[in-house]
């Protein structure tokens, strides 16, 4: 998708019956005076051209000659004309090659030669592939004619005699055939820092070359069998010389033929008599026209019935009028999708603005602090955002992710106690790459549009050895056995029954069973995050310690010499020798009588196996330099986040920093339920880092210099909101003073109560039955999270509709049904619009991605979504396919989008509400390319709540990209 093109969702489906279509839901056909002659009313003026009546999935409307190279490849044309199945076979062979090459550790026997790149790796195997040769595909001969992918593409296209001006169109059609795989290859080629891309490089040119080689081989094989020339000029000439025959052939082979004609057409085509085929074509055309006319008449009558027009009235209309009705209906059908989309959006905008208006009225009535807005008056700038300078005693502030699922929890939390909640992107403005304890890789915890420059490392409190439990060892052994060639036969007999118990436990008592299983697993030791920058001498010391540890392990393994028999100078000497800083015999060799040859082997092993060598040391030093944040940077990040949400004074004693994540079993889409702002991971680490930074005395001193005074008694406490169970768990409590801990019991109770209320709402949305109250709901959602048969543990971000950028007062106390992204923002603290700039260019863009992903997934779940997840299989550890072989599935599964056959998510563009003066918003948009394009090209709907004019300005996108603001009055909280 590009933001430069205009107007999405032109063919959006009709929304479900639950949707309020409102006054904008214009009728799609005539509402009065329409008449229908019924099913027997074949129009007399139907166009005789058979192609006219092939809409939708029935058949293409243009001829082969017109479509070749634009919509059809050569093998598509051959498939449609001669019933070959080249496209299917080509996709199958292609997918197998792609699965082999892109595997990221799932297969036991990996494809050899992948380091050479996709094309060369595949070509090396294809040249020796006897199965291809047995199928009649002479791939080796083709591959022998060119070495690199570009030359191969040129060779194939030349050999097929495709005119060069058509090449780009042809490539586009080829890429669209397996759009999931092509998209993945494109992403990989651009992800230069991605480990697997560095290791096994691939790009779209290679992809195209492989596809074209296979296509050429298959076409040549089919040509030999059919005794036909299937190259471009020959196919084109055939299509132009036999247009009627081509139509019948396409109808027959595409499965769109009238069933009762199938046999006759087959016989006529077998006989090959031109006159016979022409006569049959005319019969067929007549019959098809007649049936299509009946279908259309039936539709008109059905619409007339719905409009309350009786059949007799319809029949009384002249033929011409009826034809006009039919034409009007079919013309409207083409625009129907967008019509419904706009109707949905307007309805939602109207409801949302009514909610905001009501919230302002309610706040004014309750506190008397609101005054009726006066047009043109600018509210006085507060000292610090929306929070009063002095909070009520015991008020707790809590930062939540802008995610739509936070809205429910925030609403209930505010209702059960004294809580001020704020919305901020769930990475809390801390882009970081995280290295978890026990894991060797970095995970980027930030939006996909940001590249983290800093690394946070998790370090355990103690240096006790982390040993695997017996259960984990057994699990590992069984896993390894499953992956060998012969062992599975024995393993099934030996331990198969255990898997039966596992299945019964997971299926029938998931909560109890999973709790028991978790006890068997060894727990991760308590760990802290290393977030401060390491000085160079500290880094060198750390590296030296690591190298010494490696030396100790190597000595023990090679010579069975324990630590107590070694001295520090001996270790140092070995390390320096391995690093090339000294030469000659070592003390170790002298004392333990190690032969010079064995000593040399040992030193070599240290360098290669244990990586104690100068190059590795340099790399490790570079990595260490990335760890942590400078104090100044920490202060910058905390200040930016606090200003962004409008909290610069009036801090409570407790500030919760709530990241979010989800829990589900057997769910390849789990990351779609986690935090989008954290790159599809959980937001806890970012919350912990932010809280740790904000609690630092040195950071607070720097913040105070910038005018953000955080009192000493204020404590930032990280927490994790499990969006599947709505449980909130507080973290890093061991770093709190006993006094601070006493405050937490009430907060934890409040969080639990709010979570149970959320669970009750969630159960209603999920359609759970037998829920008697919040407690039962909490138990049910917990079960859903642990149940491996549960295809819908939660709805996730489905039904997302709006993004409110403004003060919480706009929506406080209103039930937004978990459909709104809420970003706190106070324009009074942002006269130049810098904070708004960062919100519009970061969180808004991510929210728009999420919205569009849902939009397209629900509009056509099979094409843009991933279909039912019941049939999904994980392949290569990076994606899912349907069944055992299919295009790589993109988008979201049916279980996230649909409830039964009706859409759960409503396909509407993100309604972005910004509370700020219109001039400010326009000035910001003028500076930002991406958000401006999103607004002007109609990818989002922008509503500006202008406090200066007390008007809601709705941007209406025009056809030529020029839009206009439409104003309506609204009350806003003062």
């Amino acid at each position, binding site marked *: 998708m590009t933001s430069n093109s205009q107007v999405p969702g032109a063919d959006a489906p009709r929304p479900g019956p639950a949707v309020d279509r409102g006054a904008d839901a214009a009728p799609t056909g005539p509402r009065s005076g329409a008449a229908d002659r019924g099913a027997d009313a074949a129009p007399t003026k139907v166009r005789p051209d058979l192609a006219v009546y092939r809409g939708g*999935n*029935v058949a293409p409307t243009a001829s082969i000659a017109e479509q070749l190279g634009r919509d059809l490849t050569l093998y598509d044309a051959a498939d449609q004309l001669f019933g070959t199945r080249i496209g299917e076979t080509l996709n199958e062979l292609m997918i197998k090659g792609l699965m082999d090459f892109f595997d990221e550790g799932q297969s036991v026997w990996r494809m050899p030669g992948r380091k050479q790149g996709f094309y060369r790796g595949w070509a090396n195997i294809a040249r020796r592939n006897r199965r291809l040769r047995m199928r009649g595909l002479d791939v080796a001969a083709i591959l022998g004619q060119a070495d690199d992918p570009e030359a191969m593409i040129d060779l194939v296209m030349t050999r097929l005699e495709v005119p060069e001006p058509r090449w780009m169109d042809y490539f586009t059609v080829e890429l669209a055939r397996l759009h999931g795989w092509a998209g993945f290859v494109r992403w990989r080629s651009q992800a230069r820092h991605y480990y697997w891309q560095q290791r096994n490089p691939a790009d779209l040119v290679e992809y195209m070359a492989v596809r074209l080689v296979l296509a050429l081989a298959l076409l040549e094989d089919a040509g030999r069998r059919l005794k036909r020339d299937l190259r471009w000029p020959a196919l084109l000439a055939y299509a132009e010389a036999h247009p009627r025959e081509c139509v019948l052939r396409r109808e027959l082979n595409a*499965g769109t033929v009238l*069933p009762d004609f*199938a*046999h006759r057409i087959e016989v006529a085509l077998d006989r090959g008599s031109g006159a016979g085929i022409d006569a049959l074509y005319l019969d067929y055309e007549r019959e098809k026209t007649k049936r299509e006319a009946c*279908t259309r008449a039936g539709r008109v009558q059905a619409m007339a019935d719905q409009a309350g027009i009786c059949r007799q009235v319809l029949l009384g209309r002249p033929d011409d009028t009826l034809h006009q009705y039919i034409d009007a209906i079919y013309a409207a059908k083409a625009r129907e999708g967008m019509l419904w989309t706009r109707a949905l959006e307007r309805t939602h905008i109207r409801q949302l603005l009514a909610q905001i208006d009501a919230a302002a009225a309610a706040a004014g009535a309750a506190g008397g602090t609101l005054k009726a807005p006066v047009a043109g008056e600018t509210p006085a700038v507060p000292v610090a955002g929306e929070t009063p300078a002095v909070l009520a005693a015991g008020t707790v502030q809590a930062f939540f992710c802008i995610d739509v699922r936070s809205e429910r929890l925030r609403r209930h939390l505010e209702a059960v106690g004294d809580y001020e909640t704020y919305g901020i992107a769930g990475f809390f403005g801390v882009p970081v790459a995280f290295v978890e304890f026990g894991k060797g890789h970095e995970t980027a915890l930030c939006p996909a549009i940001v590249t983290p420059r800093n690394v946070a490392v998790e370090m355990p409190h103690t240096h006790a050895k982390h040993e695997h439990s017996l259960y984990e060892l057994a699990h590992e052994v069984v896993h390894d056995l499953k992956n060998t060639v012969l062992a599975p036969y024995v393993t099934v007999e030996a331990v198969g029954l255990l898997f039966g118990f596992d299945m019964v436990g997971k299926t029938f008592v998931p909560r109890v069973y999973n709790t028991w299983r978790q006890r068997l697993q060894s727990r991760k030791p308590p760990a802290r995050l290393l977030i401060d920058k390491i000085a160079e001498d500290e880094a060198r010391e750390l590296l030296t310690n690591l190298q010494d540890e490696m030396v100790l392990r190597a000595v023990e393994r090679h010579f069975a010499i324990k630590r107590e028999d070694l001295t520090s100078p001996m270790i140092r000497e070995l390390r320096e020798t391995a690093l090339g800083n000294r030469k000659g015999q070592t003390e170790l060799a002298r004392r333990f009588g190690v032969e010079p040859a064995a000593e040399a082997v040992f030193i070599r092993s240290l360098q290669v196996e244990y990586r104690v060598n100068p190059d590795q040391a340099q790399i490790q030093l570079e990595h260490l330099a990335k760890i942590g944040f400078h104090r100044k940077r920490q202060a910058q990040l905390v200040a930016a986040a606090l200003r962004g949400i409008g909290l610069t004074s009036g801090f409570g004693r407790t500030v919760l920093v709530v990241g979010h994540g989800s829990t589900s079993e057997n769910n390849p889409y789990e990351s779609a339920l986690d935090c989008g702002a954290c790159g599809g991971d959980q937001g806890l680490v970012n919350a912990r880092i932010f809280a740790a930074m904000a609690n630092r005395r040195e950071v607070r001193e720097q913040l105070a210099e910038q005018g953000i005074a955080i009192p000493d008694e204020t404590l930032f406490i990280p927490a994790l909101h499990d969006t599947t169970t709505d449980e909130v768990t507080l973290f890093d409590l061991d770093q709190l003073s006993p006094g601070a801990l006493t405050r937490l019991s009430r907060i934890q109770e409040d969080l639990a109560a709010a979570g149970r209320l959320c669970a009750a709402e969630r159960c209603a949305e999920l359609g759970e039955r037998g829920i008697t109250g919040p407690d039962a709901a909490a138990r049910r959602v917990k079960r859903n999270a642990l149940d491996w048969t549960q295809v819908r543990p939660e709805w996730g971000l489905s039904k997302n509709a709006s993004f409110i950028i403004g003060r919480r007062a706009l929506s406080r106390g209103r039930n937004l049904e978990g459909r709104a992204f809420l970003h706190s923002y106070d324009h009074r603290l942002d006269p130049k619009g810098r904070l708004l700039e960062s919100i519009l260019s970061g969180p808004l863009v991510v929210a728009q991605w999420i919205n569009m992903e849902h939009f397209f997934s629900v509009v056509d779940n099979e094409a843009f979504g991933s279909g039912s997840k019941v049939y999904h299989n994980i392949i290569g550890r990076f994606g899912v396919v349907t069944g055992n072989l299919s295009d790589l599935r993109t988008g979201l599964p049916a279980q996230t989008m649909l409830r039964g056959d009706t859409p759960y998510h409503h396909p509407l563009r993100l309604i972005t509400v910004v509370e700020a003066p219109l001039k400010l918003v326009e000035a910001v948009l003028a500076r930002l390319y991406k958000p401006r394009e999103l607004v002007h090209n109609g990818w989002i709907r922008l509503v500006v709540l202008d406090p200066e004019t007390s008007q809601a300005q709705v941007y209406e996108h025009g056809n030529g990209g020029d839009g206009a603001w439409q104003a309506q009055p609204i009350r806003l909280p003062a």
Partner: protein
Amino acid sequence: MGWILALPLFLLAGFCLPLFPLSIAVNRFVQRQPAGAGDRFAQPRGKALVLLGLPLVGVLLVQAGHWLAGDGGGWLIDVFALWGGLTSLLYAFRLLSARDGQIWIGQLYTSALALVWVGAAHDVPPLLPALGLAASLLPLWFLLDGLTCRFGIARTGLYPGLSLRMPRFSTLFVAAVLAAVAVPFSPGFFAVANLAFGGAASNELLTLVPLSLAWLLWTWAGINLLTGIVFGEPRGDLDYADVDRRTMLVHGGGLAALALFGLILVEGML
């Protein structure tokens, strides 16, 4: 010299328990279109009667030939058993590419009944297996005829996704196809089991290879048939009308009767 007398009887039986190329006659008959309203044997019911009656005649001829051949003619029946096995495999293999319903069922009929020869060579009483295999095809025969009446032709790939448009019919169709390809516990399954258990004692190779391979190919072809008719995305330009409750009951009753016959077959085997 009894085999000389038995040979013509066996050859005649080869038309009824079809052996290639004598099987061409049966297949032609199955695919024959009615010449007019009076052409009773080309009507579905007439054809069904013939298809059910042919194996009975075949069994009689085989039994008579067996009697005439005596103990010295064992080699002759072995030859016919080999011929039957090869015929069965040939038609089972061709079944994989058949798309037309009548061709499909004709080839399955040939492939199934040719297996009776395999049992006959090893002293398995052929009557019940022959009846079981033939009767198992009857529900599918009538349902395919129903498709022909509705759409003008019974063929895979022309109107996929019937399960979404005609769920009752599809339920019956799935059950009928499964019965036709002799899945447990259809009469066909017991018939195949009867042939297998009876024949394996005397010649495992000659009995089990054709039986198991043919059975494998039938089930594969059955899945192909279901995929092209019951599953998939339905076309939007066709009119669909599901079977009514009465027809559903009639066909369901027929399937139940077939299941009952399967039990009788088991009783006969025991």
